[in-house]
Each structure stands twice: as structure tokens, then as C-alpha cells.
């Protein structure tokens, strides 16, 4: 089927995108089940339903690019290449976790992959990304060629944090290779986006800081991919920061345990049925015969095996040692 590809990515890249999205989905759905069973400690915020944004953007990135994530960080981590087994161990608070069990779901990071951390503080990633982008700018000046970029993810609710808003201006003032992605899933916890954010259009919000803004359907992988490609290219070439809004849906509660009574009746069924980014992507690539069902099924098997192994290893892994309590505070003290 090599000729049946009307998409902007070659087949192997489509399959890779599928694999990443499917991995996120299965990772999250598995956590949903295991959390309900009481296996997982702490607060867990699931990214299921939002995969196209993380993957559509991250497909453009390399390891030298940085991202800063949110409390809802698993999808960004997986899309950026953080090891899935290490993530699962982290969520279980085990030795060998991405953060040796010290961070947990809300703090998974892997700086070797340019992943600057999920973050328990809304909006906090945006200033950090300005810094990573500044560092990238210095590197680019030295080595020439296209710059590394840095991308801050922020929810619709958190886009009202001063830290985020200040960062838009700073990135513009310093003309940083930074991108601010607003993941607009319509809710901040139980509160509808429209209650907490006075402006309808994030393009207007961006314009208020002198930044170009784009809004895309975040459940459409290709729409995200294309828009992200544009803003990332501009940033790499010294054209400065942008804001990218992805309109998306959250399949689960704000955090696990949320009864979601604030949703309209039938809303969850509706979004599962009609706004599933993974389903859309699958139908598109299958429909165009760019890939075969068998190829996707093979990936599905792989992914399920990986998740199964991740959970098994996470459960089997020993907890941190008592001595670990007091290490890793300082490089030297």
C-alpha cells in the first residue's frame, strides 16, 4: 500500500504515531482500572481522549527539544519518548521508576529526553519553557542551523495563571523559540472552561501578547500535526513564539475518583462515540488504506504486551530503600 498515502507523513511515521497514541490510551485506561481497584496511590489525572495533541505535536520534536507538562502529563511523557515501564514504576512509587519513586504521577520527568516534568502547579511550566527556549537560542547561535524549541503545555483553566500569561510576553520580548500549547478540554476540574476564561478565542489571547495564535481541532491528529509543524518551523527558524490551542475532550474525570456529575447527560458517551481522536486517526489511515488492519493489530498486541509488562514490573519492583528518603535533595550539601 505504499502508494495509498495521502498524508503528510510516510507510512512508518503514521504507524509510529499510531503506536504512541495507542500506548497512551492503553496506559491510561489501564491506570483507570487499576486505580479503581486501589492499586495506585495518590492523585492520577488521565490523558485518554487527548492523545492526538501530544503525539501530533511531539512527532515534530527531537530529543534536544524541551517540553514542560502539566498535572495531566502521562501522554506528553509517552509521546516524548519517556520509558513506559519506568513511568509505570514511578506511578506505583517504586525503585527504578522514572524518578525513583520520589515524584509520582504528577512529577514524571526525563531530562535526557527533554521532558522537564509533569507539574503539580498550574502554569508553572511556561516560565521554565522560556528558559529552555532561551538555552536553545544560545545553543543555536553557537552551532548554527535550526534551533531546538521548547513547548509548554497548559490546560484551558491554567491558561489563566499569571505565570503563563507573563511567559507569553517574555517569550515575545525575547523572541524565543517557544510554543505555548493550550489543551482546551472544556473543563478545569469540574468547572466549564467558559465560566473561568473570559475570552472565547485563544487567538485573541495570544494577540494580546503580540503572539500569533492558531486554534485547531485537537481530536484531529492531522490538524494538530500540521499546525504544530508550522509554529515549530517558525520557532526553529528564529521567527519567535506562538500559541496553539487544541480543542479536545477528556474521557475520564478530572482525576481518578471524580464522579463527573457536572457533565451534561450523555456527554461522555457522546464524546467517546464521536470525538475519539484515536478512532478518527485509525479510520483515516485505514480508510485511505495507508496502513492495514493487521499492521495496527500487531501494534495493539505490542502495546498491550508492553503495558502488561509495565504493570507487572511495577508491581514486582521493590519500593525505595529507607535511605533514599534523604538522598537527591542537593547535588552537594
Amino acid at each position: 500500500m505504499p502508494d495509498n498515502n495521502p498524508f503528510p507523513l510516510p507510512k512508518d511515521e503514521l504507524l509510529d504515531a499510531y503506536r504512541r497514541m495507542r500506548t497512551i490510551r492503553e496506559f491510561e485506561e489501564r491506570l483507570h482500572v487499576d486505580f479503581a481497584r486501589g492499586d495506585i496511590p495518590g492523585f492520577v489525572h488521565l490523558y485518554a481522549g487527548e492523545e492526538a495533541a501530544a503525539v501530533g505535536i511531539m512527532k515534530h520534536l527531537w530529543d534536544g527539544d524541551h517540553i514542560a507538562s502539566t498535572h495531566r502529563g502521562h501522554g506528553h511523557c509517552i509521546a516524548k519518548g519517556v520509558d513506559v515501564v519506568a513511568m509505570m514504576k514511578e506511578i506505583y512509587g517504586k525503585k527504578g521508576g522514572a524518578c525513583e519513586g520520589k515524584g509520582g504521577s504528577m512529577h514524571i520527568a526525563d531530562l535526557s529526553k527533554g521532558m522537564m516534568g509533569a507539574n503539580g502547579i498550574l502554569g508553572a511550566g511556561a516560565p521554565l519553557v522560556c528558559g529552555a527556549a532561551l538555552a536553545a537560542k544560545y545553543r543555536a547561535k553557537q552551532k548554527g542551523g535550526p534551533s531546538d524549541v521548547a513547548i509548554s503545555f497548559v490546560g484551558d483553566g491554567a491558561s489563566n495563571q499569571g505565570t503563563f500569561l507573563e511567559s507569553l510576553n517574555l517569550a515575545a520580548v525575547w523572541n524565543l523559540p517557544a510554543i505555548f500549547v493550550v489543551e482546551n478540554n472544556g473543563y478545569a476540574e469540574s468547572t466549564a472552561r467558559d465560566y473561568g476564561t473570559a475570552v472565547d478565542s485563544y487567538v485573541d489571547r495570544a494577540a494580546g501578547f503580540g503572539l500569533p495564535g492558531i486554534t485547531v481541532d485537537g481530536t484531529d491528529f492531522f490538524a494538530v500535526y500540521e499546525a504544530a509543524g508550522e509554529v515549530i518551523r517558525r520557532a526553529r527558524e528564529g521567527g519567535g513564539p506562538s500559541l496553539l490551542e487544541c480543542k479536545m475532550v477528556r474521557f475520564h474525570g478530572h482525576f481518578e475518583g471524580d464522579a463527573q456529575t457536572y457533565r451534561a447527560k450523555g456527554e461522555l458517551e457522546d464524546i467517546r462515540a464521536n470525538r475519539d481522536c484515536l478512532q478518527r486517526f485509525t479510520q483515516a489511515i485505514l480508510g485511505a488504506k495507508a496502513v492495514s488492519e493487521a499492521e495496527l493489530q500487531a501494534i495493539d498486541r505490542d502495546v498491550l504486551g508492553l503495558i502488561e509488562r509495565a504493570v507487572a514490573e511495577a508491581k514486582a519492583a521493590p519500593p525505595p530503600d529507607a535511605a533514599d528518603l534523604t538522598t537527591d535533595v542537593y547535588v552537594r550539601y
Partner: protein
Amino acid sequence: MARKISMKMAINEAIDQEMTRDPTVIMMGEDIVGGAGGEGEKDAWGGVLGVTKGLYAKHPDKLLDTPLSESAYIGAAIGAAASGMRPIAELMFIDFMGVCFDQIFNQAAKFRYMFGGKAETPVVIRAMVGAGFRAAAQHSQMLTPIFTHIPGLKVVCPSTPYDTKGLLIQSIRDNDPVIFCEHKNLYGFEGDVPEKSYTVPLGEANVPREGKDVTIVAYGLMAHRALEAADLLAKDGIEAEVIDLRTLSPLDMDTVLESVEKTGRLVCVDEANPRCNIATDVSAQVAMNAFGALKAQIEMVAPPHVPVPFSPVLEDLYIPSGAQIADAARRTLAKGKT
């Protein structure tokens, strides 16, 4: 006083009664009602852990959901307090103070002094504190010492449902800014609470257990651990006196000093990190003002100088235990004059 309710319900009841009593009492915070702007249930959450659930139905005009902008809405509560209201602002987790601290420590705390005594800022900022929830480094801190350090703020951290209701009502009626710290791991803790409204004064410690051998000073969750320690010590025939500070600013040093005069031994317990915390504060004041009464070294028990770890095994090690407190008591009892 036979009715037992949880600390969570005690908070809810205190707010309800004060809103009923005083038209200027309003409350604002993130999802304190919940469901705003949506098509489903209104009053869907009552705060992230359901503490304010049901208040909206009773006081629909007085609970305001906010955008995720702590500086703006905590500041708004302060500004409203300076212009005639008596607002309660919920800072969901005290760990979020870093995005809005200026409004608290440079504005609310300093208005009265900077303006030559001509301002009153009767605001209450409620926030969850403490570890044990597996909520990791950014949702588990105490941070009480930081607020206690600041002149102009009052800081409250109760350990029982009874004290919680009485201190919260008192805090709402108080004319100074109060940081009201609620230990999230005590929300489910039940105790006797009168239905009627009552107050517990700020600046008065409680002595939940008397003893003559050693004084253990604590607050919040640590008051319970101190009582556990006293139980352990009792098995060895040691009579520990437990002081629950209840309010950290103002601080009831009289009760502490009196107790130390009696016991001659002091253990100060804090769930806050060890440097410049409440335990060092109380210890230092005793070393200055009751030195002569001390028979041996002061002992302090606090978590190590590390962020709160996520892993349950580490977090459990992080939080001072009754056994650690009892050991500290034994250490000071083992030394010095008798």
C-alpha cells in the same frame, strides 16, 4: 455534646453558620461550588475534597467559583476585606501559596501597619496542609513556619473537629488576616462537636494530656502523634504532658513555659521541614525564657530537610511517628538533672 462529626463537616458547619449570621461573610475559591458554566449538576464538587459541599444550596449568592488565578482571587478576597466584607478564600493546597504569596504577606499582612493603624483586613485564607496523602512534593507541605514568620498574619492549625469549628468561627470574626491550615489527613477524623455556634479563642494552646515528666509540644496531625507517643511512654511509666498549640501566631508560650517549669523536659514536634520551623521557634523561646527549668537538652522531631516524597514507604518515613517522638522524649529523659 454527643454528636460526632468529621473535621470536614466541622468546617462546613462553621462556614454555614457564619454565612447565616453575617451578610458580609462570602467565600471564593476554585471549584468550591463546582459545575459552574456546565450543563450537569450545580454544586457538583464543594471543593476538591467536598468540604464545602451543600453550602451553595443554602447561600447561593455567597459562594463564588473562581478562575485558576490565585493571585487575583486571593487578592480580591483581601481587597474585599479591606472594603467592608469578611471573605473566606480557599487556597486549595497551601503549596500553591507560591503563586499568590505577595497578596498575603506584602498586602494583607502589612496594610494595617503601613497605613498607620487605619486598615482592617478581616480575611480568612483556608488551605489544606500536610503529608500522608501520597500527593508528593507539591501537594503535601506544611509551610506553617513561613506564614508564622510574617508579622501581621495569624496562623491557625487545629487538630480536632471541635477546635476546628470553634477556631474557624473565631477566625472569620477576627479582624486580622488569618491563615487557616487544615490537615487533609484529618478531614475524616471525627469528634464531638456541638451543633450550636461557638468560638475557640486564637492564641490559646490546648493541653489534651497532662503529665509531669516531659512536655511534648505539637500541632495539627502531630498533636495526634504526640498523644500516641504519650501512650507509648505511659507503658514505661513516663507521664508526658502534650500541648496542642492550635494557633501558631499568636502563640501561647505561657502554656508551654508553665509546662516546662513543671516537667523540665521538652520535645518539640513539627511536621514542617526542620530549618526555621515551629519546633525551632518554640524550642528557642524556651531556651531563652525557661532555661533554668530545663533539666536536659531540648529535643526536636521533624521530617528531614527534604521535599515530601511520593512513594508511600518514603512518605511514611518522612512524617514523624509516635515512636520517634517517644524516642526523643526518652533521649531527653536519659540526660541531665533529675
